[in-house]
């Protein structure tokens, strides 16, 4: 949490200036009554017009000075608070970009979003406010006490006794409210989460007519947020009447005690009046203080939440013996006794997996749903790290590659085609920095999407993603394939990315892929795709069930035969067998 506040250090000078300007304003404010007194005493009472004119002008000048200071303060305070917010957002976003998927599991997306926007706004507002009024309160407080002590230390003792209690009380409020506002922010996450799920699942909700169900869910989340907000605000608001009451009772005590002293002749009535007046001022300052307390307790909660993100330990990092010069050159991939389970779970997903693929070869991976195909894919670009064994690229452990260069050499097409808000050419160009438009078009041609794009009203400038046109599932898949192709990867990994493509288009795509000089991993359900590959890896429950070419597997793997039969039926099965054998001769 303190770390979050420490980012303010960068603005030391501006903060100093802002505080100095506040002091200037405060100074003018304090001088004003003195000048006023001077005008009355020396001017009006003595009927001296020149004194009135002179001090009137001084007062006016000072007012202008205060105004200038105040305006300048606005600039400096806004500068500090906005830059501070800007910095925090940058740091948090940067940190989140370095998160591994394990880290992501700790913070749901909805929560990360609130932390980066709403929590930062809270901090920002507190900083702005602090720079403008924070100094006032303690100074006025201290000033009031000191002045009363000067007037009469005996009577003022009452204040000296009361104030520490009040400050202690305020500290308690700050602590309690801090943790309550923490709950408020957490509940805000909850609202955000339901909202996000509803936006993502809108079609499903409409299809299943679950509006009322979701409405209840949302109203519960927003109701909880309301409850927490109400109770924390009410706690804060209790503090003002309490402070007021205690101070007022203190004043009564001063009056009572003062009157005794007056009757004993040890105190002047004027002194009592002065101290009572100072006490009134102090109580009006206390309301500002409780306002500050509120801002601080919110800021504390938000700083905590931001701090949690920043303090998260990244568990997927480059190892110490990373060889900076390493780069994928050929694209040979070897799995050596690889086992894997997801962090936080001990269910083994991959068990003792060994195989190797030479540069330029194509490996098809088959296996039942949940057999570990996608998990296997994730280990090559190090989206996750193996828990046993090693993955080698060009004979070197992937752990030894700098993560960025490793991933730069790999083109991944995930199962779900995710596009970002932006034009089609921007989305394809995502695969490669500074991709020229002809590179983008040629990738699109190979991904069999060029013709479709040409037909769109704005062609490659058509906007897609969350804010884009309607693309069919297959069109999205092909765009996401083009995005991988444009980087001319050494290793291309297609995770069942052709499932929504019709077979003709898929055929053309696979043909175009052959012109790329890269090692290709392709997860597929289709035998027709698999039989074109150099090797087929049949996974079953995380282990290698069979390995070989189509022909080999037809003879050696009963499971493979079963899969073939499931797709072609008995008579066609014979046909496939015959077809492939004749075509390969």
């Amino acid at each position: 949490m303190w770390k979050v506040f420490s980012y303010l250090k960068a603005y030391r000078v501006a903060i100093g200036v802002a505080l100095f300007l506040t002091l200037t304003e405060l100074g003018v404010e304090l001088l004003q009554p003195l000048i006023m007194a001077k005008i009355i005493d020396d001017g009006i009472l003595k009927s001296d017009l020149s004194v009135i004119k002179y001090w009137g002008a001084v007062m006016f000048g000072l007012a202008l000075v205060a105004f200038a200071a105040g305006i300048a303060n606005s600039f400096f305070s806004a500068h500090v608070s906005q830059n501070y917010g800007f910095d925090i957002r940058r740091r948090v976003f940067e940190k989140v970009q370095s998160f591994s998927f394990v880290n992501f599991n700790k913070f749901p997306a909805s929560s990360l979003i609130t932390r980066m926007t709403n929590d930062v706004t809270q901090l920002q507002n507190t900083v702005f406010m602090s720079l403008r009024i924070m100094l006032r309160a303690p100074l006025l407080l201290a000033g009031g006490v000191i002045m009363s002590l000067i007037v009469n230390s005996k009577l003022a003792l009452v204040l000296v006794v009361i104030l520490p209690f009040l400050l202690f009380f305020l500290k308690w409020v700050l602590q309690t409210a801090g943790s309550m506002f923490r709950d408020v922010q957490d509940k805000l996450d909850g609202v955000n989460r339901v909202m996000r799920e509803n936006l993502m699942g809108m079609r499903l909700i409409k299809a299943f007519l679950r509006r009322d169900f979701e409405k209840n869910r949302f109203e519960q989340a927003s109701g909880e947020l309301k409850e927490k907000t109400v109770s924390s605000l009410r706690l804060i608001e209790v503090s003002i009447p309490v402070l007021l009451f205690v101070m007022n009772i203190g004043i009564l005590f001063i009056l009572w005690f003062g009157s005794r002293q007056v009757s004993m002749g040890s105190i002047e009535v004027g002194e009592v009046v002065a101290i009572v007046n100072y006490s009134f001022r102090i109580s009006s300052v206390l309301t500002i203080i409780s306002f500050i307390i509120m801002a601080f307790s919110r800021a504390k909660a938000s700083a905590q939440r931001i701090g949690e993100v920043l303090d998260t330990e990244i568990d997927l990092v480059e190892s110490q013996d990373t060889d900076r010069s390493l780069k994928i050159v050929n694209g040979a991939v070897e799995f050596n006794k690889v086992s894997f389970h997801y962090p936080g779970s001990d269910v083994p997903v991959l068990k003792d997996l060994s195989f190797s693929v030479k540069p330029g070869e194509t490996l098809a991976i088959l296996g039942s749903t949940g057999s570990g195909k996608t998990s296997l894919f994730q280990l090559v670009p190090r989206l996750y790290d193996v828990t046993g064994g090693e993955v080698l690229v060009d004979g070197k452990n992937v752990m030894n590659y700098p993560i960025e260069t490793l991933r730069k050499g790999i083109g991944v097409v995930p199962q779900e085609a995710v596009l970002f808000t932006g034009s089609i050419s921007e989305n394809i160009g995502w695969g490669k920095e500074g991709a020229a438009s002809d590179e983008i078009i040629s990738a699109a041609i190979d991904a069999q999407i060029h013709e479709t794009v040409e037909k769109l009203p704005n062609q490659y400038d058509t906007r897609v993603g969350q804010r884009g046109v309607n693309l069919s599932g297959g069109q999205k898949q092909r765009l996401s394939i083009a995005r991988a192709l444009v980087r001319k990867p050494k290793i291309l990994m297609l995770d069942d990315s052709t499932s929504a493509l019709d077979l003709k288009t898929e055929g053309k795509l696979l043909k175009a892929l052959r012109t790329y000089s890269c090692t290709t991993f392709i997860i597929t359900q289709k035998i027709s795709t698999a039989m074109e590959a150099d090797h087929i890896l049949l996974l079953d429950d995380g282990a290698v069930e069979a390995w070989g070419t189509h022909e080999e597997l037809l003879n050696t793997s009963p499971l493979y035969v079963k899969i073939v039969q499931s797709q072609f039926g008995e008579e066609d099965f014979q046909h496939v067998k015959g077809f492939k054998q004749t075509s390969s001769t």
Partner: protein
Amino acid sequence: MSKDSNRPHPHNHLFGKKVKPKNWASTIKRIGSYFSDQKFLLSLVLLMVIISSALSLLGPFLIGMAIDSYIVKENIEGLNKLLLGLIIVFVGQSLSTWLQNYWMIGIAQDTVLKMRNDLFNQFHRLSISFFDKRQHGELMSRVTNDIENVSSTLNSSFIQVFSSILTLVGTVGVMIYLSPILTLISLSIVPLMFFGLKWITKRTGARFKEQQRNLGEINGYIEEITSGQRIVKSFSQEKRVMEEFMTKNERLRESGYWAQTFSGFIPKLMNVLNNGSFALIAGIGGVLALNGKVSIGVIVIFVEYSRQFTRPLNDLANQFNTLLSAVAGAERVFEILDESQEEMDETDAAELSAVKGKVVFQDVSFSYEKDEKTVSGLNFSVKEGETVALVGPTGAGKTTIVNLLSRFYESDSGQILIDGHDIKKVKRSSLRSHMGFVLQDSFLFEGTILENIRYGRLNATDEEVVNAAKLANAHSFVQKLPKGYKTILNQEGSGISQGQKQLLSIARAILADPSLLILDEATSSIDTITEMKIQEALQRLMQGRTSFVIAHRLNTIQQADQILVLHDGGILEKGTHDELLKNKKFYHSLYHSQLKQDA
């Protein structure tokens, strides 16, 4: 992606220029309308404000009395009585202050809750096409960040404004009583103040709105990038993402900077005006006193009062600031609330009681974008209980047909009839209540597997859920999970594969037990052996109910009663598997490409 050519913000060009005060006046009015059913509590709050204001004046007055009449005269007994009275006053003051805040917070947060829930409900009344053009995170920002702006204002503004006005009226009254001339001098700052406030609000209002918009933009970007982390990482595009983020971050800083700076001017402006009026009173008052027109005592008291006069003015001006930021937030909320609800059923829309399942498309055309026909002139009819397969290359319009049938989108022309009823004349909810869906993206909510399957029919027992899972072939893998049906699904790394998600959404549809079944690529990520197993269950499920099946693997649809081959938004061929094969046209070649790759 940094180009924002078609942002959904119609007021773009207005920023930095004029913002019509009419806008925010009506927005404030509209926020006020949310209070309408809180009148009773609100009047209690007003009462408390009046009481606490009165008591806060009475306290010092009594203390003055205590000093003048008792302490000076050393009347201890009388003093003690008065002090006791003062204790009561102070208790009353604290109590009324506490109560007004206590109630006000309740009122304000109830209002915020209502606004938030209204917004949420509105989202559900909008058509799917509304969401096509919006970023999730941008919309989320309205539910959180924008409403928060309203919230923090409502908590304090009402009380502040009211008590300020109260004090103001009281003070001005006393001032006029003391000296009309000096009052006039004091009030001379009011027009200046008005002028200054106008100048500032012209700037802040627009800036605040811009800030909220930029906050929404950055919220949208963060949401999108966080959702697409897998791509960002796989392509190691962190730097690029960072750059784009920084552009948005800078934009937010810029607008925030000016909004905050300008809003900071308000109290300073008030200060200088106050100080100015101070000087004026002292100067002119001094001259008047020299001429004997005003007594010195009056000037002294007057200065005190003019200080009292400026404090509520100051407070009012400050409230103005927070009000503006609330308006900026509220406007973005109302923007959504004012979107036309395309989901409204026609007033005479009927309920569909029982659906037999006869479906007819008559000359149906539709386009998502204006210049681009997606489907046109669709004609086909489906008998009760038939299974229809939709086949064709990607983008041919298969999912569009499903979208039209379920009225996610409305056809531009032509009619769709179910059992002879035009579906446009049927309530959407009634229409969909007869349909069961397995959609292309098998979306699951964060929650347990049990809850997710139960989404198909909320009152299903655990047993029924498990049975549906068994039929969908999901039971076996669910059982292997350490927590079984209690496993919580979340977005990343729950260890559930895409195919398994599809199995769960099939189970969900099975549980719904609809009259009309729609399977859009329901098994695309499932391996073929598992698929075969589910196929049996699906076959059984489709028995006796009209079903629309979209699939690429043609062997899964061979048993269909009717196959529609779509191409470029029209029907190319229709018939059974055998008929189409005999035709030796598009379907024939599609089917055989499954066996041969064109090498």
